[in-house]
């Protein structure tokens, strides 16, 4: 377990689209490893390019509660809108076929 360099409380690890983020359980400060800020910035600009209008991008600022992160992690290349059950009958039928084939 990492200790917060500022307030010495325990830091918890979260995963944001494949990027590991440590957040202090006390002061809510964020610790990023080498290259992770760049990765997040790149991800953010990719999202903005791929899915206009951009969804409110989750900003890992101190003060945000960890519960705001998605419960299930996803890879960096995951769909911007994880969902599954939206979509019409045709989509359900087509996915039904995919579920059962090699």
């Amino acid at each position, binding site marked *: 377990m990492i200790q917060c360099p500022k307030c010495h409380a325990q830091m918890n690890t979260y995963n944001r689209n*494949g990027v*590991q983020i440590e957040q202090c359980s006390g002061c809510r400060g964020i610790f990023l490893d080498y290259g992770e800020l760049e990765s997040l910035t790149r991800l953010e600009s990719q999202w903005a390019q791929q899915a206009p209008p951009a969804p409110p991008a989750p900003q890992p600022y101190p003060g945000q509660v960890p519960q705001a992160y998605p419960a299930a*992690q*996803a890879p960096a*290349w995951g*769909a911007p809108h994880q969902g*599954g059950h939206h979509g019409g009958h045709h989509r359900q039928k087509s996915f039904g076929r995919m579920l*059962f084939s090699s």
Partner: protein
Amino acid sequence: MTTTPVVRALGELAHDRAHATTARCDCDPPLVLADRPDGTVVRSGPVVAKAHAPDADTAALASRLALAASPGLAGVLLAPIGTAPQARVEEPTGMTGSGTSGGYAPGAGHRTVSLWPYGEPVDPADPDAAPWEAAAALLARLHRTVPPGPLPPMRGPAKAARAVARMCRARPGDPDTAPVLAAWRGLPAWARAEEGTPPDRAGFLCHGDLHLGQLVRHPAPHGPWVLIDIDDAGLGDPAWDLARPAAWYAAGLLAPETWQRFLDGYRGGGGPALRVPGDPWPDLDVPARALTVQTAALALAKSAAEGRSPDVVEQLMIDACVRIASLPPELTSERAS
């Protein structure tokens, strides 16, 4: 569907096994459950006969059938009727095909046949009711089992490579294949079946081709769920068996709560594929990218053969390849490459 000589021969083999020849026969006619180049499956009452792929490695198939028959895997893999390949059927070489051949002698156009008890499949009309937890628990048990004997490699990476080759044949030079090929090239060599699996991931018993058609209730219709189809089973990275649902989830097709149920079921069963608590993606990333490529490649191959564009669901898998292909390398959670 026209009845081919292979289908007729399988129907006869299954029926011969279903009851004593002296018994009065009021059986329904044999039913074709699948008829694809890589496997023809015909049911007669309680017995199912399968003709395996014409190019299947006979020795490898025999060891896979022995695996399914192994007592240590009872309740995980459906056991065949008898352990040895039951018979062979001849593929027709022209319009005048023949039926069952005698003996097991391999030869051109001969397909190994195995016999199985019938199991009740997942209802394709109701995928929401699919047994995700049971599937996950069965995989966890399979992956935890010490291999009972020598086995060939699990064929997951080989199937992905085959799907990409099929796409290239179906759509030569088609720009729509570019993102799928780019995502494919970004995978480590082992995931493209060009090298063996890294030693830290190899050696686990794997199914090799998990999807919802690979689960049946046995005895039908209310028995416990078991896994079927050992044609791709063998030793390899157990994360590969989780990778198809992972790919569906990452593409936005599988609901997050369904995916979480599957993951929890696997972890609850003590499955070894996910090595750390918390984020599963460091272990899933490479196989899930490979299955995304495989699914997108087959979608492009099949839609080309049917003279249509990919449908909305197939397009989501292709879109996932676009995102994989545009990914900066430091954002892949890839390991051991």
